[in-house]
């Protein structure tokens, strides 16, 4: 009996101990302080442009004879190699941009990616320029291009290595024997670089490149002009020239469609150059001569550039046979035609041309990156 009581008492004490251990947790401490805020989110950035095709054409003292790459691939996504026909468009760090000055500077500001693109005869005669080095970069607001190529002389084809700064100028009639109202034109042209981008999808462009816009037959001009084939197809054209645009720091911004009149047009606005020509036919009398001359004309032979703030009405006397007057007048462009900054330098037969444009201009005649 005593044993049972002892056993019960021991059980009670054990239970009491268990209750003490299990039941007396104490009060939890205070909640710890909140941690520091996480790092800030990233600033808004426009999405990386979609990869796209584009076309390149280069001439040497010609408007028509061009070598080119009708279909190049412009890769923004960083997943492609800069090789073959692929141009690696480098994403620039914030606050970094290449200087658009036409100077290569060993690629400073452009990143380490470039592609040596093979060029082929695209239209007209072969001009022997077989490759061009292409760099490209972009940031949140702009896209940049650099092109370098070296001209090649060929006496048989009449191709020379030259800067070509006097395109299509007027010449006062030789010997004074001609009609002083009918000037002649030089046969000189200029070096040119053209880029083509799709604004709206162009049929078969992704397979044939800019060939699909060449010599489209409109049944009027024997098929010898450029246009898209579909009524809503539109292409952007960036047109740099060694004289008529290069003096201004802009490229000529154009577009091509197949609208009611078709073909290539300047973007809306004041173009960077226009033809300096007066052409009238009155009865049997034809006038074909410069519309403007330089301030110090006649007989100054001042050449290019002839800015619109430097011109004055054409004089009818005071000229000497062989006098020259510029065939184009330059203006500071305005409007959508002034979207592209472009400048080139010429060094011992090599052109370095650099371009810059807003990724999105808000103009329907411009490609959006």
């Amino acid at each position: 009996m005593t044993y049972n009581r002892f056993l019960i008492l021991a059980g009670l004490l054990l239970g009491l101990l268990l209750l003490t251990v299990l039941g007396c947790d104490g009060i939890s401490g205070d909640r710890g302080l909140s941690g520091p805020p996480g790092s800030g989110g990233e600033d808004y950035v426009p999405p990386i442009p979609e990869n796209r095709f584009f076309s390149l054409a280069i001439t040497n003292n010609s408007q028509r004879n061009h070598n080119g790459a009708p279909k190049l691939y412009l890769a923004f996504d960083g997943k492609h190699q800069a090789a073959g026909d692929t141009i690696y468009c480098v994403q620039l760090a914030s606050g970094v941009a290449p200087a658009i000055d036409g100077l290569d500077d060993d690629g400073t500001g452009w990143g380490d990616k470039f592609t040596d693109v093979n060029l082929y005869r695209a239209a007209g005669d072969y001009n022997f320029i077989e490759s061009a080095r292409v760099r490209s970069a972009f940031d949140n607001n702009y896209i940049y291009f650099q092109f370098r190529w070296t001209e090649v002389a060929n006496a048989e084809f009449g191709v020379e290595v030259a800067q070509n700064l006097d395109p299509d100028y007027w010449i006062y009639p030789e010997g004074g024997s001609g009609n002083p109202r009918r000037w002649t034109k030089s046969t000189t042209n200029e070096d040119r670089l053209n880029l083509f981008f799709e604004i709206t999808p162009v049929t078969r462009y992704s397979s044939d490149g800019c060939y699909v816009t060449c010599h489209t037959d409109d049944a009027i001009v024997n098929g010898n002009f450029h246009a898209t084939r579909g009524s809503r197809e539109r292409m952007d054209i960036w047109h740099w020239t060694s004289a008529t645009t290069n003096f201004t720091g802009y490229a000529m911004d154009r577009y091509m469609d197949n609208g009611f009149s078709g073909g290539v047009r300047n973007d809306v606005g004041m173009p960077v150059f226009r033809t300096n020509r007066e052409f009238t036919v009155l009865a049997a009398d034809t006038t074909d001569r410069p519309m403007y001359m330089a301030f110090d004309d006649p007989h100054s032979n001042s050449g290019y550039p002839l800015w619109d703030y430097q011109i004055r009405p054409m004089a009818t006397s005071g000229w000497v046979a062989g006098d020259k007057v510029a065939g184009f007048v330059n203006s500071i462009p305005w409007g959508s035609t002034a979207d592209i900054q472009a400048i080139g330098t010429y060094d011992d037969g090599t052109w370095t041309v650099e371009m810059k444009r807003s990724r999105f201009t808000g103009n329907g005649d411009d490609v959006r990156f």
Partner: protein
Amino acid sequence: MHRGIMFIICLGLFLGMIVMSGCEGDKGEPGRVGGPGDRGIPGTDPDLDRPQDRYFGIGVVNENELAVAGNKRVFLTFDSTARASRDTVVAARVQIPPLINGIDGEEIEWGEQKSRVRTSLLNTTSGLTDPELFEVVCRAAWDEYYIYTYFQWKERKVSVRTETGDSTIYEVTTSDGPNELVMDALSKIIESIDSSLTPYDTTLFQWIRVPILNVETLFCFYDPIEQETVCVIDTTFGDTTLIWFDSKKGEDKFAVFWGDTDVDNWSDLAFREFFNMPGAGGALPAELFVDAWVWGAGTSNPVSTADDWSLTSRGKAPDVGAASFMINLALPDSVPRYQFYRDPNYKSQLTLQREIYPLWYFDAVGFKPAGWDLNRPVYLPGIISTIPSGSRADIYARATFDDSGGGIWTLEIRRARKTNSGDDVVF
């Protein structure tokens, strides 16, 4: 025995309750500081979001700047689920901007919705001829950075000239001010010049060279046979001068007003001030702000822009910068400042008004009174086209005029949603 066990159980429960309720123990230590939060999500630019809906007003004139037809209150919504109606324009979200070239790109460029907004003569001043512009087709589009608008209207030929017998009388202002006798005498000259008027009006005013007529050179008498006063003109005296049509003759114009104010009648005030309606020049409320886009067939269209103005309590004023045109006169009632560099009379051989416009700044030289062939009509434009700059150059605008369709203007406009200029409304 059982009683003892029950007692022990009860005692245990009692002690347990004491333990449960009494053993609070010591308070624990505060917890540790939490770890850093997750990185924030990438930001968004609220400026790129859908613009806020708003009201706007449109005004259109056909040659006569005072006779404005329009609609003072049109609703522009950027909610693509809304339906376009006569007073609601639904803006389409576009990926490829419309081509601002004045050529109707239709739904391919502008989306499916368009509004046929009713317009009516708004200036009730007596003596004005209703231009009978009853409808303007409106479209709008937007993207992250720009807003695009489209307007199309059809003109009607409205004569503002008065007929007297077989003679057409024009109001003409000479350098000495209006003179009825002179006007009557000149009517034939001007009539022959003016016969080429078309609905395509690009002129603010137009210079015409005529003989100076003074008291000595006009001899008027009453002809009893004809039973009217007859004036004989003697042009052997005097020189010639340049005159221009009176100011009621102007260009085709289109204005868009955007109110950004709590002033309820901002649209009324805008029309009043910009179209010189009764009360123009009067007091304006302090909080008033109206952004005005004023397109002119002669003043802005050749340059592919619209003139950017605003209206505040201080009155209407152009935005900062240079305009797309210069008025071609030295002083009111004076002579033109410029002429085409090949005149006289190179340009005057052209007979249509549209062929003397635009006269670009680079084609203009100082006016010289000598050398004109007065046997031919002489035209000089009233404005010189230039390149605009600054905030005044914010708007791209281009229009085309379709004669074949009976005189249809198609006007397309583009402007940045945010120009960062305080004199522009933000979309």
